[in-house]
């Protein structure tokens, strides 16, 4: 492993997520299994337990989501330390096979974790925590993903050694019709990072919205809160799409307009 401040942060976030996940799992499991059949008194106890679960899960999921950005920063810091690596592709070669699986997984985690966070925000705004059982169940279902996500980070950064690696020039030669995605986005046209983040969040919010939509038809508090939340989510999603589009203009100029002499 090559220790840099950023790889150290990634390892700490990974270990932190694993420990908290193992701590929360039995509590979430208890809430999920007992929620439907609980008496009023027992339900109160489960609600108290669930609030602890909810708070800890927020910490875990937010850490994992922030970890997506830190993950790429950590990889960038490794480039000068791995001989032959010219971009993230080279570091991925050094961390093969964990690196590729981890990066592909990172493309989807925001969408998946965000569903749980959105539902919990609705649950916190409703009287009587109507989604408590559902959220506990969803968290238990998320556990394999959380473990794989965190474990892959640790495995990847522990695998990277300062050995000579082939970089993107092996695949993305002058004859290849596609550019190296890492070179293109991270080095040549960095405004595309803003475009990708803007559109990525917009699409993720749409997916959260599709999950929430089913609850808008529920009677009472849950339906009203879900409807309001869905409307806000739609507007914020549009705002991020606009941010992505505004950033697209200078990004395209980075592709089109070379440095004139």
């Amino acid at each position, binding site marked *: 492993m090559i220790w840099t401040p950023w790889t150290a942060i990634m390892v700490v976030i990974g270990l932190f997520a694993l420990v908290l996940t193992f701590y929360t799992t039995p509590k979430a499991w208890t809430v999920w299994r007992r929620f439907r059949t609980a008496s009023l008194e027992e339900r109160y106890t489960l609600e108290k337990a669930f609030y602890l679960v909810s708070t800890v899960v927020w910490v875990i999921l937010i850490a994992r989501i922030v970890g997506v950005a830190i993950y790429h920063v950590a990889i960038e810091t490794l480039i000068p330390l791995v001989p032959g690596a010219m971009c993230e592709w080279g570091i991925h070669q050094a961390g093969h096979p964990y690196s590729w699986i981890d990066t592909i997984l990172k493309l989807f985690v925001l969408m998946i974790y965000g569903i749980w966070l959105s539902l919990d925000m609705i649950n916190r705004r409703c009287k009587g925590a109507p989604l408590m059982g559902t959220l506990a169940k969803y968290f238990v279902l998320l556990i394999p993903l959380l473990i794989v996500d965190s474990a892959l980070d640790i495995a990847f950064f522990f695998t990277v050694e300062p050995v000579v690696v082939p970089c993107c020039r092996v695949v993305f030669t002058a004859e290849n019709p596609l550019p190296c995605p890492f070179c293109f986005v991270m080095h040549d046209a960095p405004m595309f990072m803003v475009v990708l983040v803007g559109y990525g969040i917009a699409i993720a919010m749409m997916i959260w919205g599709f999950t929430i939509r089913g609850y808008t038809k529920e009677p009472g508090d849950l339906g009203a809160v879900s409807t309001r939340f869905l409307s806000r989510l*739609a507007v914020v999603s549009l705002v991020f799409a606009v941010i992505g589009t505004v950033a697209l203009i200078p990004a395209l100029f980075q592709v089109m307009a070379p440095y004139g002499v």
Partner: protein
Amino acid sequence: MGSIRKVIPVVVVCIVILAVVVTAITYYSTRASYEETPKEAELIVHDVKINRRTHSLTGVVVENNSTASLSVAQLNLMKVQGRIVLCKLDLSPPIEIALGEVKTIDFSCPKLDPEGADYEVVVITTRGTLTSYIFPYPFEAGRPSQ
């Protein structure tokens, strides 16, 4: 409010699809501009001059092997992995290279990536033909090039 909820996802999807199409068209139209240009076999790029301290290209060494003089009208520096033109120099008036002459043309481009990449210098003549030269910077097979 209900209609806004239904319309916004459609708008967002349309924006994203449009952005992908515009980006692809822009990228491939920029890149394709050299692929259709005929090659100039008689003009050879021998070397490039690089200032390693500032990570910048400073010049291009070209030789004319044809039976007549050639004039260079434009120089471009492309990054092979990104296929993006990093620097462009329009020579006005064009620089003439006499028969058998080796000439260094000043071409300043401060955009070489210190982390490493392959670059292609594209030399375009007044005849509308081109010649190119690919060089790595700063690494060669995992070691710093000399």
